[in-house]
């Protein structure tokens, strides 16, 4: 891209306004004097004028529509409906605000974070600091960090969120017992029952036969 001189840069800001007929007379005269001397600014102006001409000719002849005859009546009916229901007004405004990109993004991120927090609060057990003196309630004992709740602490299991957890646990315990009873029992000989003989050639250490 061609680098502009400071003078050209200053005048180039005015080119669009000049092509649009929005420049003050004094500024216009200055620019015209500059354009007479500067070929590159003149070329830029031609380009801008071409862009303007295309936009004007295409968009300027876009068809117009005339409002239908019942336009006013419909508006007045809408006004009356709004007066009867102020909630409608409020909802419209809310809807309009949250349709914009930034509030929409903020709203959706906030609700996402809120949902995440609710999930965490619902599924994670509460963790208390080890030194914190927390009163233990019989119904919901605190899960103290570093200690594993025992089976004896039955109220911990009562805290579980699986329906009929106690019944399920009983069932699992029964099945496990049955499984164990079905397994053939292997009599494990303790190591110290093995025959240990001490050969006369060996050292004082015994050897397993």
């Amino acid at each position, binding site marked *: 891209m061609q680098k502009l001189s400071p003078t050209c840069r200053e005048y180039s800001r005015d080119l669009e306004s000049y092509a649009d007929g929005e420049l003050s007379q004094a500024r216009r005269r200055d620019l015209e004097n500059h354009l007479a001397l500067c070929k590159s600014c003149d070329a830029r102006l031609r380009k801008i004028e071409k862009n303007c001409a295309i*936009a004007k000719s295409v968009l300027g002849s876009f068809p117009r529509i005339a409002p239908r005859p019942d336009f006013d009546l419909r508006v007045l009916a809408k006004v009356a409906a709004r007066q009867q229901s102020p909630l409608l007004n409020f909802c419209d405004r809310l809807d309009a605000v949250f349709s914009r990109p930034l509030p929409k993004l903020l709203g959706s991120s906030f609700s996402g974070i809120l949902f995440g927090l609710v999930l965490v609060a619902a599924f994670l057990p509460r963790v208390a600091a080890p030194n914190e003196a927390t009163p233990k309630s019989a119904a919901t004992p605190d899960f103290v960090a570093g200690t594993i709740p025992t089976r004896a602490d039955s109220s911990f299991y009562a805290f579980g969120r699986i329906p009929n957890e106690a019944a399920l646990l009983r069932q699992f315990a029964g099945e496990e017992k049955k499984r164990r009873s079905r397994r053939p029992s292997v009599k494990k000989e303790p190591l110290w029952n093995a025959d240990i003989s001490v050969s006369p050639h060996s050292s004082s250490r015994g050897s397993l036969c």
Partner: protein
Amino acid sequence: MAISFSFTPDATRNFATRAFAAPPRDAETQLLQEARAGSRVAQGVLLERYRERVTNLAYSLLHSRDDAEDAAQEAFAQAFSSLQSFRGEASFWTWLYRITLNLCLHRKRRSKENCESFDDHELPAHGDAEAEAIARLTVSRTLDALPETLRVALILREMQGLSYEEIARVLAIPEGTVRSRLHEARRRFRELWEDES
């Protein structure tokens, strides 16, 4: 495909070149006070004064007659219902234009999310009318390919005939920003238009 762009000539053909003459401020203040008090006559006068411009602004943004009329009616209803909160710092039409723009852009974003297309059912079957409708759709598609900020600036200038100062007031941006947006919008519009045709 070369698209010939020629709409049937009518009385309103070069509407954008007509300057928008805002009514005197004092007369309008009186009218607004009456409309705020609930005068149907005052509301009727305001409707008569602005309905065509507001409907056409909505039409240039939404490209559908039904949607445009509905959005324009909604804009008037919102404006009349919230006249109590209108402090009169800006002129009424600037405020009304802003409401219309916001409503239309809101609808546009929604229809984009729902992947709605143009009003193809408005296409006539044969003849010049069909060619005209195709040309209109091409313009709409070209405009819609522009980013929202550039599109709005271009529409307000070329289709509504507003000055830089008026556009700046409607969009609540500095005049320098209007100029740079228009420059970029026209450059991109030309590129897209040449690609289309």
